[in-house]
């Protein structure tokens, strides 16, 4: 069995660690390139959302590399993500690939099917070993998240542009190479030192821009033209609150125990969007309100083209922006988005915020 899975930011490091520790062969899909996106959009429904298309591209490339089992998450709606796996399966089968698809539906769904699916994957594996692998994977996820947030802080303030990104890359390599708890912890220390060694411009107070929107476009750099780097290189500090471990916590663990409670975000969104609309629609609105209260300079709202929850959020963000006096820019992304145009829009937005800041001070 050779397992593969879709790319989602740095998630591949975590999943690869989990499966490899269990002794399952993993084929990591090649990094997302133009070709991946092209392949994906060629075979996917025209109006499907962008993540589905990139997923399909990932799967095709991984199957070509010899993978025979696809691990994918499911959902219960109303966001389209819940039906991704069915459509993707149909597309890949039509293309003539032979493979098995293991779909993890949220626990809210049917317990029986979930146990059946887990069985397919972990047949004959020791439960102790599973727990141990999960623990290592979790540690890596936490370490990666820390690296990501450090990179956001340092990139905006570094003196020599490009240092942080270099360190960020080698830090990810270090984490993905670590094989047990001790090395992970040791490497985290090492990485901290690396980051601290970056020369910073202490007199500079960067613009702060919040990133909100749909989780895939926020986490997968190839889908958002690497907006974090673009903003960082312009000297902007990016504030992001969707984090993978947090998401896993609320959506898998708390959900299983059925103790999911409305959080700050839902509360903040209430005057504007008062009901669950699937995906991250409410979060986008809520986070924008919270960022405005925290005094951020602006918000960039990212979403895949035709994303239903985010379109609702977009309609409402106009009002939030006006009421809370915070500039908001929505960017819809898909395979036709051009990097130059995107960069120009982001730069113009940053220019405006800079001018506003200067005018005030």
């Amino acid at each position, binding site marked *: 069995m050779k397992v593969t899975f879709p790319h989602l930011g740095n998630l591949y490091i975590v999943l690869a660690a989990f499966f490899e520790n269990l002794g399952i062969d993993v084929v990591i899909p090649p990094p997302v390139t133009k070709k991946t996106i092209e392949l994906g959009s060629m075979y996917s429904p025209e109006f499907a959302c962008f993540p589905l298309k990139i997923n399909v591209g990932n799967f095709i490339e991984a199957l070509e590399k010899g993978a025979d089992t696809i691990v994918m998450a499911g959902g219960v709606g109303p966001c389209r993500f819940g039906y991704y796996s069915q459509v993707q399966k149909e597309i890949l089968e039509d293309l003539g690939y032979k493979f098995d698809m293991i779909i993890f539906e949220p626990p809210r769904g049917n317990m029986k099917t979930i146990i059946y699916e887990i069985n397919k994957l972990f047949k004959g594996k020791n439960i102790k070993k599973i727990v141990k692998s999960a623990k290592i994977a979790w540690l890596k996820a936490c370490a990666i998240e820390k690296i990501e947030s450090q990179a956001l802080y340092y990139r905006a303030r570094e003196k020599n542009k490009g240092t942080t990104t270099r360190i960020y890359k080698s830090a990810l390599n270090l984490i993905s190479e670590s094989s047990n708890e001790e090395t992970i912890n040791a490497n985290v220390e090492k990485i901290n030192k690396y980051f601290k060694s970056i020369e910073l411009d202490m007199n500079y107070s960067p613009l702060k821009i919040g990133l909100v929107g749909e989780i895939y476009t926020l986490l997968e750099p190839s889908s958002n033209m690497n907006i974090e780097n673009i903003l960082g290189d312009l000297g902007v500090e990016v504030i992001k609150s969707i984090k993978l471990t947090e998401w896993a916590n609320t959506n898998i663990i708390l959900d299983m125990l059925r103790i999911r409670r409305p959080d700050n975000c839902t509360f903040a969104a209430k005057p504007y969007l008062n009901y669950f609309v699937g995906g991250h629609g409410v979060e986008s609105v809520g986070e924008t309100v919270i960022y405005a209260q925290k005094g951020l300079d602006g918000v960039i709202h990212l979403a895949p083209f*035709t*994303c239903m929850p985010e379109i609702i959020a977009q309609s409402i963000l106009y009002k939030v922006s006006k009421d809370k006096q915070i500039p908001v820019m929505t960017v819809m992304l898909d395979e036709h988005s051009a990097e130059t145009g995107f960069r120009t829009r982001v730069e113009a937005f940053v220019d405006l915020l800079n001018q506003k800041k200067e005018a005030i001070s």
Partner: protein
Amino acid sequence: MQKTVGIPRALLYYNYYPLWKTFFEELGCSVILSEKTSKEIMNRGIEVTVDDVCLPIKIYHGHIRNLLMKDLDYIFIPRIVSIYKKEYICPKFSGLPDMIRCNINELPTIISPIIDWSKSRRELTKVIFTVGSIFTSNPYKIWSAYKKGINQLKIYKLLLKQGFMPEDAINILVNKKDLLTPDFNKGKYTVLLLGHSYNIYDNFINMNIVQKLRKMECNVITPEQLPTEKIEKEVEKLPKKIFWSMSKKLVGNYLHYIKTSEIQGIIYLVSFGCGPDSLIGELVWKWANKNGQLPFMFVTLDEHTGETGFNTRLEAFVDMIERRVNI
């Protein structure tokens, strides 16, 4: 004084209007309906919405603005999240009242009950009484208004099953005409018209597709004509439950009719950017291609669709049916 309640003639109007109308009228209100969808209504909707929302939602905004020109005490914008257990309508319906509030100013009081049966129908009575108590404190009156509404809805659905279009069916209901035998199923061919109710019944959005097909000697079957049990029976066989009620209905219809020899062609109408249909439509299209027995046409509609091009496609499609039948 009699209170007036405005109901936009869009979206789920085509599914539930007789219930809403009867309910409010029994409580002593007068119901004001927005005008039929027109270019002007569409443009007024486009003015206030973001580019990315689908055409039906834009048109809904237009209808709300049309209602604002009338003298209203209340406006009815229900938040219809889910009608069946573990199913949803579409995220845009869940956020509809919020979108309207943010996009349109100077609204009268909005009546916006939350219809969310995704977990259970326990809240049903609560919803009825909260809405009803705006107008009367007599619980008996509220309950009987609801019962009468449901009765009207049942008759309405029966009329749709016979093949009446919603406007005709509502006419029959309102004017208390006798049930006429439908005089329209006389064409040579039968076409299954798949699509959400607000697309296939709004003659502005679909450019009169039903009348055009009937003129070309085609009978039209719409998804509302198939009993729910039959739909359920078909969709049960799918590997994963479809959690969008409206798309589920379309898939059930497709799977049912493809096995019979009742139809000679299938037309699938979608709005540009429709989320559920971008996936479900693709699945149906793939199945139809594999099956290869029936002509299948996928029509995407938005505010830029030209009527001439649309007519040409429709005529070509009927020509194709004609040729296949005559071979």
